[in-house]
């Protein structure tokens, strides 16, 4: 009976993972093998076979824009084609903003006298690099505690001892990944199609409480030892603003499944880092001779301010 139940659990996890994968993939044209940015102002297109040179040299066959602004078409300066006629390099008059994905529309591709139809392709930086930059961004550059000033109640409440801090950080990371993925799914497939966006606050807060309860129940059954260690922190997670802020940010930015996962993971790990740093300092502070009026929270706030100043050094940094 027990194994039977476990199979169901694994199946449902696989189903969720499959859905996430579907959300992450985008269809491409079959004749175009690869598109990539080159230097600061050109794009390289690699075709599966040789293309017609006269067609390739005609700049009116290409139109390209940044994904958020479909009205602003970018001007192509010149087109060059490689000797084997499989690679075309488009050079633009202005520098490209490579942080944005670009949509490239190639009309009526002609190869060996045949027309292969029109293709819409996305040109963007290496996807894993992009995901990694979201992760690092949420973790360090835009650390939710020190750069966005969220989740402070729980942050000051649980950063007195290192062991508590680590326990809280790990529990929080698990819950936030769980609830953010559910929130993303619900927002993309239920709230948005039915135009129920205005309900997002009610739905997200309900989801958070629900996932905390779910993690509580699952942990209690699956791993009682772990539950004993981390169970007490679960209740506190609901009182944390980050856990509700992440779904709201996901909904605002229209992230897809993988990006949402990275943001949630980054937020959780960033909170863990912040808690660990803070608890290390506060353990030392217990030994220091602090003025009476500053004892407890006031001095903790001043320390957090110093950390926030230090974290400002990361702002504006970009990876990849």
């Amino acid at each position, binding site marked *: 009976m027990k194994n039977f139940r476990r199979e169901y659990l694994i199946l449902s996890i696989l189903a969720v993972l499959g859905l996430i994968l579907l959300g992450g993939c985008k269809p491409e044209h079959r004749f175009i093998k690869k598109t990539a940015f080159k230097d600061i102002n050109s794009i390289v297109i690699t075709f599966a076979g040789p293309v017609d040179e006269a067609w390739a040299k005609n700049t009116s066959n290409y139109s390209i824009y940044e994904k958020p602004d479909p009205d602003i078409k970018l001007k192509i300066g010149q087109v060059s084609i490689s000797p084997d006629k499989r690679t075309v390099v488009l050079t633009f008059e202005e520098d490209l903003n490579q942080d944005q994905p670009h949509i490239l529309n190639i009309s009526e591709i002609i190869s060996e006298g045949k027309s292969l139809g029109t293709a819409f392709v996305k040109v963007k930086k290496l996807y894993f690099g992009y995901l990694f930059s979201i992760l690092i961004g949420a973790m360090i550059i835009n650390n939710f505690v020190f*750069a*966005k*000033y*969220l*989740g*402070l*109640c729980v942050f*000051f409440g649980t950063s007195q001892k290192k062991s508590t801090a680590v326990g809280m950080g790990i529990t929080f990371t698990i819950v936030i990944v769980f609830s953010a993925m559910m929130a993303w799914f619900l927002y993309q497939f239920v709230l948005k199609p039915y135009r129920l966006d*205005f*309900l997002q*606050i*009610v739905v997200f*807060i*309900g989801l958070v*409480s629900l996932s905390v309860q779910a993690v509580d129940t699952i942990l209690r059954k699956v791993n009682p030892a772990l539950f004993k260690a981390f169970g007490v922190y679960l209740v506190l997670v609901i*009182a*944390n*603003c980050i*856990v*509700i*802020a992440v779904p*709201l*940010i996901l909904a*605002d930015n229209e992230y897809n499944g993988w990006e949402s996962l990275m943001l949630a993971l980054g937020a959780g790990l960033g909170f863990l880092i912040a808690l660990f740093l803070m608890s290390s300092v506060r353990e030392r502070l217990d030994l220091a001779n602090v003025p*009476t*009026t*500053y004892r407890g*929270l*006031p*001095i*903790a*706030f*001043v320390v*957090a*301010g110093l950390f*926030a*100043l230090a974290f*400002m050094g990361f702002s504006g940094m970009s990876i990849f």
Partner: protein
Amino acid sequence: MPATTKTNSQLVINGILNENPIFRLALSMCPAVGISTSVMNGLLLGIAVLFVQVFSSCTISVIRNYIHPKIRIPTYTLTIATWVTVIDLVLAAYMPAAYKEMGIFVKLIVAFAIITMRLEMFACKNSVPASFWDGVGMGLGFMFAMMTLGFVRELLGMGTLFGYDILGFKPLLFFVLPAAGFFCVGIMMAIYNYVELAYNRKKKG
């Protein structure tokens, strides 16, 4: 806790001084650090919180005899979420500029511990008028704290108040930086502690 015996004015004063949400209870500090960069921001978010607190307190107080104790926390959360949605939509419709500046914090009122705590500690045990005045006190206390922080930070950081130029120069730009929010809150808490200590000493001696 039995039903309160305090008068209405005592309830309001209690919210502003003895149990000030930010400086004394140390709850809902995220907005205190995040967006107290100007008096106007503090005032607007204070009004939003005041409304949510008063309306939720009254709602819970009205239905307090019909809530099953086991599901009381979800009931509080859903009540707050509903009122936050109302405030959020109203602000977005009538004050788009200010709404943009406050960003995600209006929606995050739903996670402010202070509101849930007052519902749990007060509104579910007291009559509607008492809950109303308690809500007003807490809301005003929050607004007062936000405006004090905003006053200090705007004056020292930009040399202005409510957007009007007062000093004519910018004394310490540092205070507008969000990191300074932590310092300001810490120092304000220390001042509250100091006043309490001094008051107690005077009472004894």
